[in-house]
């Protein structure tokens, strides 16, 4: 049933929020420490486990798919309720941070691609790697 997927998602979100809040208390900060990330991690692990056992039915997936396709619309609604008037005054910081980080990341692409390629080429000489079927 569709609700199974929605419920699974709800449980992961709630456990994540709880773990995040508890971590915040234990660490002595008034914040939720990585709760959303914990929820995501939990969902990936559970979905993986269910898929391997063939227990993730189509209807269950539909419940999860619906909410992940509502993600951008919800982000738009979130944007629509921010204090943009105040933020415009600090606008340049967003422009420079956003533009600068793209430039820096572009520059790092060729450098890191080399690391990857070295790794790939050493892997390729090992016979086990060759025997593995292409997926």
């Amino acid at each position, binding site marked *: 049933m569709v609700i199974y997927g929605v419920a699974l998602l709800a449980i992961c979100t709630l456990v994540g929020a709880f773990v995040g809040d508890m971590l915040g208390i234990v660490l002595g900060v008034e*914040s939720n420490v990585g709760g959303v990330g914990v929820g995501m991690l939990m969902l990936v692990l559970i979905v*993986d486990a269910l898929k391997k056992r063939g227990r993730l039915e189509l209807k269950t997936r539909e419940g999860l798919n619906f909410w992940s396709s*509502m993600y951008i*619309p*919800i982000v738009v609604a979130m944007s629509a309720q921010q204090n943009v008037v105040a933020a415009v005054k600090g606008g340049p910081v967003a422009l420079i941070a956003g533009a600068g980080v793209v430039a820096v990341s572009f520059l790092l692409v060729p450098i890191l691609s080399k690391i990857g390629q070295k790794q790939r080429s050493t892997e390729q000489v090992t016979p086990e790697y060759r025997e593995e079927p292409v997926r």
Partner: protein
Amino acid sequence: MMDTLVSVFKNNGLVLSFALIGVIMYVSYFLSDKLTRGRVHGSAIAIILGLFVAYLGGINTGGEKGLSDIGIFAGIGIMGGGMLRDFAIVSTAFGASFDEIKKAGVGGVISLFLGVIVSFVFGVIIALAFGYTDAVSLTTIGAGTVTYIVGPVTGSAIGASSEVIALSIAAGLVKSVLTMTFTPFVAKYIGLNNPQSALVFGGLLGTTSGVTGGLAATDPKLVPYGALTATFYTGLGCLLVPSLFFFVMKAFFA
């Protein structure tokens, strides 16, 4: 008649917001298609429009909650509030799988972690240069430079002001739009013409819409490789930034 309409809207706030956001999405994808030939993704235009209506709302009411300060649009506050936002963000992890990340290899994983760290540090440096000195604001702006999701997730988790959260969304949005538009032009200079460099590219930039849009305009065959690493980027950011990174920031900036 007008009174009846207003009361229907007020009594159905969340439902009205579904309709309203639906219209915004439609207009955005239409503009994306007609004005930019799909080069700037509809989702990015929709978020820009979202910020724009928040600006209009703020000017009209003098409030701090954008469009949702206008009585009949209060439902926007529910749809885009923390509860449904976190719920929808967690749902995006559906479709990711750790077997997939193994295919990305060591280079892909290094680029993923380095991408989050470099983006965050860069955002923090810029925020410092603009006079922000408190750990909460610095961390939130740094988080926004990771992606426009990590920004607000971090900001509301650690208690940043709505103004700083709006800035963090804007920073992530600029990153996403520039990635979409400039990738095809710089691709040949940064060796972005093979699966390995596309994996690294996805891990470094991480903004899913920017990476997939930029790669699609460069060479559609590269899209799945970039998307493979980018899928994990926001999740990794949501995990690391409001926890480890925030603590490091707290240690440096009281």
